[in-house]
């Protein structure tokens, strides 16, 4: 994928050239591109005049940041205690069968990424799944195809 450097620079210039903003800038890059492209990391190191290694360290430390391209839609499947005992592992298996991906992977069509996350704080709705910013509560294996197909149809137009 070709990265538009103007977009990268626009994001960088939202912040003063101080190292304390590095995490915020990386979050913005992540939000914009759905991952942090290498070009963005290198431009940021130059912008903040700090070693690339220190940014790389941060980017690999935080789960919220990804250095690999993510799918268009991010499925966050809760595997907190409540969701876990209500069968989130089965759901992960179900998603795996439907999309052919495991946790942390992106589907071949680039539409979905699956993340297994810790408690989302909606235990009453367990098991919970969040696609982008939409919460789905009391998810069952039967409901999964319907939910996922909605995004597929949307992408197909």
């Amino acid at each position: 994928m070709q990265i538009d450097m103007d977009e990268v620079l626009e994001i960088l210039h939202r912040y003063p050239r101080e190292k304390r903003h590095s995490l915020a800038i990386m979050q913005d890059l992540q939000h914009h591109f759905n991952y942090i492209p290498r070009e963005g990391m290198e431009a940021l190191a130059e912008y903040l005049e700090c070693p690339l290694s220190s940014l790389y360290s941060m980017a690999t430390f935080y789960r919220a940041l990804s250095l690999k391209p993510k799918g268009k839609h991010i499925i966050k499947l809760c595997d907190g205690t409540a969701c876990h005992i209500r069968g989130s592992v089965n759901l992960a298996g179900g998603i795996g069968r439907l999309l052919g991906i495991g946790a942390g992977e992106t589907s071949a069509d680039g539409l979905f990424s699956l993340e297994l996350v810790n408690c989302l704080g909606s235990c009453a709705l367990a098991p919970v799944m969040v696609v982008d910013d939409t919460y789905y509560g009391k998810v069952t294996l039967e409901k999964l195809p319907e939910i996922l197909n909605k995004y597929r149809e949307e992408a197909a137009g």
Partner: protein
Amino acid sequence: MTITIDGKRCTCEKGEKLLAVARRNWIPIPTLCHHESLPGQASCRVCLVEVVQQGRSSVVASCVYPVEDGIEVYTNSDRVRAERGMVLALLRKRAPDSQLIADMCRLYDAPDLDRVKVSVPGKCILCGLCVRACTELSVGAISTVNRGVTKEIATPYHEPSAVCVGCGSCASVCPTGAIEIVETADTRTIWDKTFRLVRCARCGEPIGTEEELAHAARKGGTEPDTLCERCRRRSMTDVLAATYGDRE
């Protein structure tokens, strides 16, 4: 102020670290991640000692523990030996290939910990001293990468670093010799990057990599060195001798 270490009275000043006071008084405390020039790393926990203050005993990391008047310190009590043994046992699981840690484990009768799985072979205990050395003394080419059980020390993207000057500071401060550095007659290879070695213009001894000398010169605002330390001193002596006419 005065403190007691293993029964010996030691004079010290406010703000001094316990380890420094002990070492000044020839009381040995083992350390791994402590380095005189890069103090305060405090990650290996091997230097832990027992501090008794107002009848209460606690175990602290001596390398970062600021002394307080009247404390009693035990560097080798049963409790210290047991806890240090456990710390070493865990470090051995982290760095199973380190002979140094294996030897220290034997010294402290460290438990085997069969139930703990060895995640990665190697000698690195992830103390981060190399990262500090590189960041503070050199160029910041390496850092910790990932976290938890997958944490490691690496260059960005696991590729040869664009900025590394091959100074070897990281390898020289590493307590377990975990960073591989290979030298031939005229090259040095470290972190998968090979550098050309520069030799002393006078005696021919290797004095560092081209990039390292250039980096030092840039930092100091001088020309890159061409002589090794010994020859530099000798050439100064020659100049002095010529000036004062006292040669031979």
